[in-house]
C-alpha cells in the first residue's frame, strides 16, 4: 500500500528577537545601519534552520538509513538535524577551510579535523539530543536530535513549505524543531487521501540552539 503525501507550511510569527543564544560577550562593537538603504528583513530560513518531522508508529525510517548534511558557509546546513535511532549521519565539509565538529556528550563525535571537501560519518544508536559545535568556527552551531519513533522527515522549501511523501495512514505527531527547541507539536491523522495541513506558526522566541 502506497503512503500519502502530507503538505504543510510554516509561518513565522513577528518577533524582534533573534532567538540565538547569548554569546559570552557581545559579538560585535558596531552593528549599525548603513545609512543608505533600509535593512533587509531578518527571517528564519526554514530550509536552513528548521526540521519538521512526524513521530508515530506508522511508517518508520528504514534502519541504517544514511543522512548527509554539509558544513557550508561556516555552519551546518541544515542546522537542525533529526534522525531515527540506528541511522548514520554523514557530515561533508563544503567550505574552503577545515572544521572540527563535535557533539558534547555524544560518543563517537569528538572534535576531529574535517578538511575541505572531505566528510566524516557517525552511526547513531542512542536516542537523545546534542548540540553540534565547531571548534574552529565558533559561530557554527547546530543541533542533533536522535529519536526512536521518528516516522518521517519533511522536505523544506525556502519559502517555508514542507512535504512528507509516502506516509502510511495512521496517527502521527507533527513536530517542528529549531535547534534544540521544539517550536510546535501537533497531532495529525493520515488517511488514504493526501493531507494538507493548516499553516504551522512559530516564533523565534522559543527557539535556541
Amino acid at each position, binding site marked *: 500500500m502506497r503512503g500519502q503525501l502530507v503538505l504543510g507550511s510554516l509561518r513565522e510569527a513577528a518577533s524582534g528577537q533573534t532567538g540565538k543564544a547569548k*554569546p*559570552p560577550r557581545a559579538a560585535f562593537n*558596531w552593528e549599525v545601519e*548603513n545609512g*543608505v*538603504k533600509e535593512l*533587509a528583513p531578518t527571517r528564519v530560513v526554514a530550509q536552513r534552520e528548521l526540521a519538521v518531522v512526524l513521530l508515530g508508529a506508522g511508517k518508520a525510517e528504514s534502519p541504517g538509513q544514511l543522512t548527509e548534511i554539509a558544513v557550508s558557509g561556516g555552519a551546518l546546513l541544515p542546522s537542525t538535524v533529526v534522525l531515527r535511532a540506528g541511522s548514520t549521519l554523514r557530515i561533508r565539509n563544503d567550505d574552503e577551510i577545515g572544521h572540527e565538529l563535535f557533539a558534547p556528550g555524544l560518543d563517537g563525535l569528538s572534535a576531529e579535523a574535517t578538511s575541505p571537501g572531505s566528510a566524516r560519518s557517525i552511526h547513531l544508536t542512542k536516542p537523545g539530543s546534542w548540540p553540534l559545535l565547531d571548534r574552529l568556527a565558533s*559561530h557554527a552551531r547546530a543541533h542533533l536530535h536522535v529519536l526512536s519513533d521518528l516516522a518521517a522527515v519533511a522536505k523544506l522549501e525556502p519559502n517555508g513549505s514542507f512535504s512528507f511523501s509516502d506516509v502510511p495512514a495512521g496517527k502521527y505527531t507533527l513536530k517542528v524543531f529549531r535547534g534544540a527547541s521544539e517550536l510546535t507539536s501537533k497531532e495529525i491523522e493520515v488517511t488514504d487521501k493526501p493531507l494538507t495541513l493548516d499553516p504551522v506558526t512559530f516564533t523565534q522566541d522559543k527557539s535556541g540552539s
Partner: protein
Amino acid sequence: MLLSRFWYIFLAVVAGAAASAALLSLGVINRQAVEHLGDELARDRTELDAILRLEARARLDRIAFISVDSKLGGLLKQAAGIGDRAQLGKLSSETKDALNAHVSRLLEAAGGDKKQDDVKPDIAFAVDASGRIIAQLGPLEANPPGSSLATYPFIDRALKGYVRDDVIVYDRRVYRMASRPVLYGGEYVGAIAHGYRFDDAFTARMAQGLGGATVVFFYGRTTLASASPSGGPALAEVAAVLPDALASEKLKRGERSDPIALRAGGRAVYSLVVGSAAQADVGYAVARPLTLVSSPLAFFQGASREDVQALPLPLLGAAAFLLALIGLLFVYFERDRPYNVLRKKLQQVAAGERERLLVTEWRGAYRKLADAINQALDKSIERAAELAPAAKKKANLDEILGPTPESHVEPYFGFADAGQQPKAAGQRAEAAAKPGAPAAAAPKPAAATSTANGAPAAVPAAAAPKAGLKPPVPAPPGVKPAALAPAGVKPSPAPLPSSNDNSGETLDEAAHFREVYTQYLNVRKDCGESTEGLSFEKFELTLTKTRDQVLAKHPAKGVRFTVYVKEGKAALKAAPVKR
C-alpha cells in the same frame, strides 16, 4: 647628663616610632599598591576595549567607499545565481582586480610607507548576495570562488544592510573583521569584509595606548601577539597562567578575570574579545608589574623627583637642625662645659696653683669624677711618699735643703736644746760628744758613712764641739754610726767645715760650696741615690739662694752647710754663722 640622657631616649623613641611607621607603611603601601594595580588593570581592560572599538569603527569608515563602488557592485550582482565554475572564475578574477584597486586606493589615501601595513588588509572578501565568496585577498586567495561565508555573522548581517565588525577565527587564524553591504542599483548585492590579524605591531600600538602595559592576545592557550614594554611582565609570565584564566567563571561569563598574580610579582587580567571568536576563547591579557616596597630603604629609593620636590625640605631641615641643636646644647651644658672647667682646674692642680679640686663646682658625674680625682691625687701623694726612699730620682736641692731657720739658729750650730737638734749627726760627732773619745781629738770631722744595710749614716755636721756646748745629737735610730760601719764603707772624703773653725777667719764660701758639693755627692752615692744632673753650678745656685734667705732672716755673718743623712737620704742643712 640627665637632660642629655632624656634627649637620647626621646630621640630613640622618635627614631623607633619613625621606623615603626615606616615598616607599617610598607604593608599599607603594598596593599594599596595591589589594589591600585587591580584598578589600573580594570581600567586598562576598559581602555583596550575602547581602543579596539574605535579602531573597528575607523576601519568600517575607511572601507565605506568600496561598498558603493559601481564596478564591484555590478560584478557581485552579476555573480549572483551563477553556478558555472568557469563563469564564476572569470567574475572572480575581475572582482579581485576591483578589490585590489580599492586596496591600492586605501593605501594611497593613508599615505606613507609606515601606514601601509596598517591599511593593507591581511584578508578581504567580496561575497555575493548569498554569501558566496566571489573574490578574496589573503592566505586563501588562490582558492576557487564559491565557498560560502553566509552563516558568518559579519557577512550575514552585512548582507542584510548592517555595517558590522567582528573578530573571527577563519582557517585557524584570528582576524579583526569589518564588513559593509555592497549596494548596487538600490539593492544589496553582496558584502565586502576587511580584516587584520592580531600582530605584534598592532599589539604594540595597543600597549602604547595603555601607557606601557603588557598586552597579549591569545587564542585558547596559544598566544597570537604580544607587546611587553620595558619593565613590564614578560609574555611567558602572562602565558603561564593562561590556563587558569581560561578556567575562570568570570571569563566564561564574558567578564574580565580577577587580577591574577604573575610569577615575577606582576598582575594580569584576562578578557575575551568582543566578537564571535570569544566563543573560541580568543581574548587578551593586560599585565602590569607590581612594585612592592621591600624595605624602608627601598621606600626612599622609590621616591620620584616630584615626591622629593613636594617635601617641605626647609621645614624638615629646620626641625632636624633644631633637634640637633637641642641635643648639642644639652651635650655642651652637661658634658663639654663641665669638662672644660675640669680640665682647667686640673691644669691648675698640675701647675701647683691649687692642690685639689673643689667638688662642689660640678654636679652629677663630673662631681663624682672630681672627687675621684681628688682621691687619686691623695693616693698618689701617699704612694709617692711610700716609694720615695727606694726611688732613684734626680736630686732636687730645693727639697733636699731643709727649711731655713727662722728664729733659732742655735740648734743648727748645735747649741739649741735637744728637741731642736738636727737629726744629722755623724759617727765622729757623736764620738766627739763623749769626753775622751778619739774623735774629739780629731780636728776634722769624720766623713759621712753608710750603714751596713745600705742606709746612709749621718754625716757629722761639725768637728768636735767646744766645751760647754751640748753634745751632738746621736744618730737617729737605725742609723749606724760611721765608726761602726763595716769595712768597705767609704767615709765621706771631705770633712765638713766646722762652725768652730771660723773664728776670725774669712769664709771661703766658694771653697765651702765646692766642699759641700763634693760631700753631698759622696753621701748620695753612699745612700744609693742618683747624682745624675746634679751639676755644681745648680748646686751652688741653690746654696747661694738658701744662704741669702737665711741671711735675710738671721743676723749672721755667713751660712755654713752641712751634709747629713735623713731617713736614708742625703740631706743638707743650712746654719747661720754668728757674728
